Every structure is written in structure tokens, then in C-alpha cells.
């Protein structure tokens, strides 16, 4: 398929969906709602923000209540997450498992098409300086998507389907030439990625490592890193009283926020910044791998890019691994 055909395909999608895609603004790329094909950035440069809010909005109403009446609120529009890079697809693949039994996530997902994109997978791994996994040939088999588009060196595009839904959408749009890839589970046949195991080992028993004290000295506990992180999904449930009843809302939160661990009597488990930082890394490198044998961090470095004091997760992991060997 050439660029003109790709344009036709995308324009069809634009006609009756809300489409989110990477888009160049000033010097950076951002995931934004787009209105026409020309706005889309096809360089596979990592967007400054991720696709997270498409799948887990910063705030959503779960139910409304008035007296004894209880009304579930499911709101979602037909949406397309277009040209998702492989790292954001990995974060999305994680979400698919974390929210597997979450009715609000799943209802929204039913109305959402996920279309991945790469301009060359091995190149992406090099370009993104991936530290959470080694490159493996069959990357796509372990990612969840409906459609995946690969830009070839000659400028043409090849298509893959990853679900029945994706196949149907391709057929409806007269794309006949595509390969189907069956999702083969989170763990490759050869076993868990060795990097996943090594990173876990570096973090798991590191609480007494001096690194955490040093980071706690400079970290402002502002939580910017977790807001921007594509794999951070911690949330609060909050009640919002309205004139005609109460709305229960689900809202993003961050383990850096003061209320996160507060219990009765104003006691906080994560009172010290050191504990917050360790909790954050522990979730990504220990708890998620233990629960799902999958990555809790996808190497996007967005946390580093937004951190006002330059806390660098890749460098920190390296240091923990080195100290652990001592």
C-alpha cells in the first residue's frame, strides 16, 4: 500500500470516529485528537504524552445515585488510537490485562480500535534506547492491537491484523492484503525476557540502597513522572455530590500525592519521599512482573523528560544493578 492508499484508509476512519494520533507541534510530537490525515506524524518519534487517557480517562463517572436509585454511567464514543508506537502498545497491552475484569474499561475498549505503527521495529528499539527488554524477532505476537501498520524502507506500508475486529475493519475498508497475527500471550515461548528478570532483581531488595536516600533529597514528590507515565494507572474513587444526587468518580492519582496512603487518624504508610520512590519503582519492576510476568515500565523516558530535578530511571536502574552485584 502506498501513501495515497494509506491516506484514503485513514480518511475513512476519520469520517465517523474520534481519532487520536501523534501530531507535530512546534518541535515535539504530541498525541492529540486529529481532524485530517496531514496532521499525523508518521516518523514514529515518541510523543511527549502517551495514549493513556484514551483508555483510562483522567476522570470518569462510574455511577450516579439519588436516594435508593443507582444508575451506572457508561459513556464512550467510537474512538481510534492511531499510529501507536510499540512502547505505548506495550503499555496498552499491560492495561488490557490489568483492567481485564473492569467493566468501564472494557465497555470503552469495545468502542475503540487500536492501530499500531512502526517505521522499523529493530530501529525503534535502538532509537528509543530500550532498557526494559531485549529486542526479539516476534515482538508483534506479544502485543495487543487491532491493526498494525509497518512502514517499509521503500516508503510503502504493510498491514497486520491482530483481532477479528481489526480484520473486519480492514475488510470494510477494502484492505485485502494483510497478514493476521495471533496474540501469543505476554510471555514469549523462550521464557520471560532476561532484562525483566534482571531489573526485578535490581529493585526488589534495594530499599536500603543509598540511591533512595539520595533521590529523596532532590525529589519534589510532585508526581509529574507518574502522570506522564503510560503504565501508571493508580486511581482514586471519589464522591462528588450534585444537586440531584451523588456521582462516584474514578480519577487518576499518584503514589507521590500526600493522600495516597492516608488512613484513619491521618497515618500515612508512604510518608517519606524515599518510600514513595521505592513504591513507584517496586510497582513497575517487581509487582507487575510478579503478577503478569510482564513489563511495568516500557523505557519511554517520559518520566525523566518531565522531572523538574532530572531523576533518570534508566541510570538509576543501572546503579541499583551495579550496587547489587557488590
Amino acid at each position, binding site marked *: 500500500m502506498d501513501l495515497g492508499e494509506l491516506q484514503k484508509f485513514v480518511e475513512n476512519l476519520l469520517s465517523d470516529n474520534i481519532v487520536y494520533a501523534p501530531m507535530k507541534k512546534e518541535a515535539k510530537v504530541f498525541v492529540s485528537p486529529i481532524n485530517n490525515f496531514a496532521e499525523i506524524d508518521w516518523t514514529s518519534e515518541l510523543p511527549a504524552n502517551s495514549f493513556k487517557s484514551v483508555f483510562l480517562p483522567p476522570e470518569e463517572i*462510574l*455511577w450516579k445515585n439519588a436516594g*435508593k436509585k*443507582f444508575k451506572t454511567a457508561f459513556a464512550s464514543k467510537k474512538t481510534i488510537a492511531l499510529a501507536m508506537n510499540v512502547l505505548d502498545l506495550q503499555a496498552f497491552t499491560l492495561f488490557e490485562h490489568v483492567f481485564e475484569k473492569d467493566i468501564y474499561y472494557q465497555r470503552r475498549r469495545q468502542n475503540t480500535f487500536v492501530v499500531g505503527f512502526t517505521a522499523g521495529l529493530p530501529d525503534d528499539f535502538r532509537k528509543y534506547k530500550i532498557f526494559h527488554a531485549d529486542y526479539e524477532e516476534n515482538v508483534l505476537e506479544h502485543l495487543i492491537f487491532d491493526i498494525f501498520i509497518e512502514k517499509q524502507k521503500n516508503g510503502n506500508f504493510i498491514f497486520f491484523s491482530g483481532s477479528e475486529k481489526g480484520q473486519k475493519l480492514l475488510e470494510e475498508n477494502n484492505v485485502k492484503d494483510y497478514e493476521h497475527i495471533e496474540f501469543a500471550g505476554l510471555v514469549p515461548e523462550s521464557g520471560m525476557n532476561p532484562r525483566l528478570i534482571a531489573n526485578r532483581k535490581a529493585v526488589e531488595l534495594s530499599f536500603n540502597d543509598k540511591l533512595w536516600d539520595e533521590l529523596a533529597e532532590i525529589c519534589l514528590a510532585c508526581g509529574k513522572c507518574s502522570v506522564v507515565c503510560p503504565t501508571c494507572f493508580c*486511581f482514586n474513587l471519589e464522591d462528588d*455530590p450534585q444537586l440531584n444526587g451523588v456521582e462516584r468518580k*474514578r480519577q487518576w492519582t499518584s503514589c507521590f500525592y500526600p493522600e495516597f496512603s492516608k*488512613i*484513619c487518624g491521618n497515618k500515612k504508610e508512604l510518608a517519606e519521599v524515599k518510600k514513595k520512590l521505592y513504591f513507584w519503582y517496586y510497582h513497575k519492576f*517487581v509487582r507487575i512482573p510478579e503478577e503478569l510476568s510482564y513489563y511495568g515500565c516500557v523505557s519511554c523516558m517520559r518520566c525523566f523528560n518531565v522531572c523538574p530535578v532530572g531523576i533518570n530511571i534508566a541510570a538509576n536502574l543501572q546503579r541499583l544493578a551495579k550496587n547489587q552485584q557488590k
Partner: protein
Amino acid sequence: MKNNYAYELARVIKVVRENPITNTLHLKLANQKRFQFLPGQFVQIGIPGFGECPIAISSAPQDAGKFICLTIRGVGELTKKLLTLKAGDIAFVHGPYGNGYPAVEKNLILIAGGCGFIPLVSVYENNKNRKDIKIQILMGCRNENLLLFRKKMQQAQMKHDLNLILEETLSKSFAAQKGLITDLLKKNKLLANATVFVCGPPAMYPAVVKKLLELKVAPADIYLTLEKRMHCGVGICQHCAVGTKYVCKDGPIFSYEYLRTLSEYQY
């Protein structure tokens, strides 16, 4: 697909005042006839507008088909509001959640500090008539006014080895000593071949566990109940994570065998 965030209406059928800041609500749930739980499990109870919070069930599992009891101390906005509920009022409940206590196969030692007796009372009720095991209760409380479940305590004191220690003044109605819960551990000979269930404020755990280990109780025989902030109740929101597990779904009861592998619980 089940909506994990939906609740059911529960009717308050009776309120018992335990102490000036604590009530026990007897509740009839919408699905009460089919309701079952294990001692140590909890439900989320709430009032729209005030959110919800986890509360351990303090009645006997045998009564689950008729009612459940929630013993609530009014310390926060929601719990204070829950104290205003009267018979006939409605509350919003979902659950039960959590793992509950493991089945008791040896002698049983219950160590409770402050409100800690709330989940343990259900274990006690479940095991009190057994002839094959001995039960020992060590209970610490600030003062007599804050004691809970007085009637049950009086019965327990007649039937089992119940030791009460108070931090402030002595009790008029109970045989009690003065001091801290750890003093009880020093003064009393613990039952041999026993499982120990400990429940109380987090600050109590290091001293109690250290003492138990000194007395050669195996980490696998010690169970602690953890309290954490909780939102979703199904192990997603991350507020209640403990190591690689969650208080809401893998807890609230954890063996010390597991906890001691985590840096924050190495006493």
C-alpha cells in the same frame, strides 16, 4: 461482566453502642440469605457523598444467613456519619472482600490491641465451642471506657484464658493488669503448638512480633492483619499494595512468613 464498583442496599436492623465512639451495626444485606464469609473478611460500607471504607465483619459466620455485624469507630468523616445510623436506615455495602483467617488447626492465640479485636471476635465466635483446641486471648486497650464487646468478653473470660491489660486506669468490671500488650507477652505463658492471630494498630506489630519470635513462635504461625487505604477492593488501584500483594484481595491477613520477606516488615 460484574460491576465491581456497584453496591447493594443494606438495612440497619439494630445498633449496639460499644463505647462512646464505637457502634456495632447489625445489617441485613440485600442478598443476606445467600451471604457467606470467612472470619477476617471485610465489606466496603459507604454513604453516597461520603465515600466508602473497609470494615471487618464482627459477627459469627454461622449467622451470615441472617445478618452481619460491623463494628465501627467514628474517627473519620465517613465513620462518624456511619455512627449516626439508626435501626431502619439504609447503608450501601459490597463484599465480602479479602482472604479471611486460615482454618484453625492448632491451639489458638488471639492478640488484640485497641480496635484490633473487631475481626478477631468473628474468629473467636467461630472456634469458641471447639473441644479439640485451646484458646488464649491477650488483649490490650487504652482504658476501660474503650473496651468493645463487653458481654462477649465476660463470657470469654469464664470459658477461656482471657488476659486483659489496660494502659491507663484499671477496670472495675474486668480482671485486668496495667501496662502494654507486650507486658502480657512477658508475663503469660503462651499456649504451645499454637497459631497466633495478631490484630491492632501498626505501631504495635514490631514489638509484638519480636517478642513472639523470641518465644520461638514460627513466622509461619504468626498472622498479622494489615490496614491500608483502599479504593477499588479488587487489587487494581494500588493504594493497598504490600510487596507484590494487596490487602484487599490477598489480605488483610498476612502470615509473617510472607511479610518478613519485605524490607518494611523486617522487625
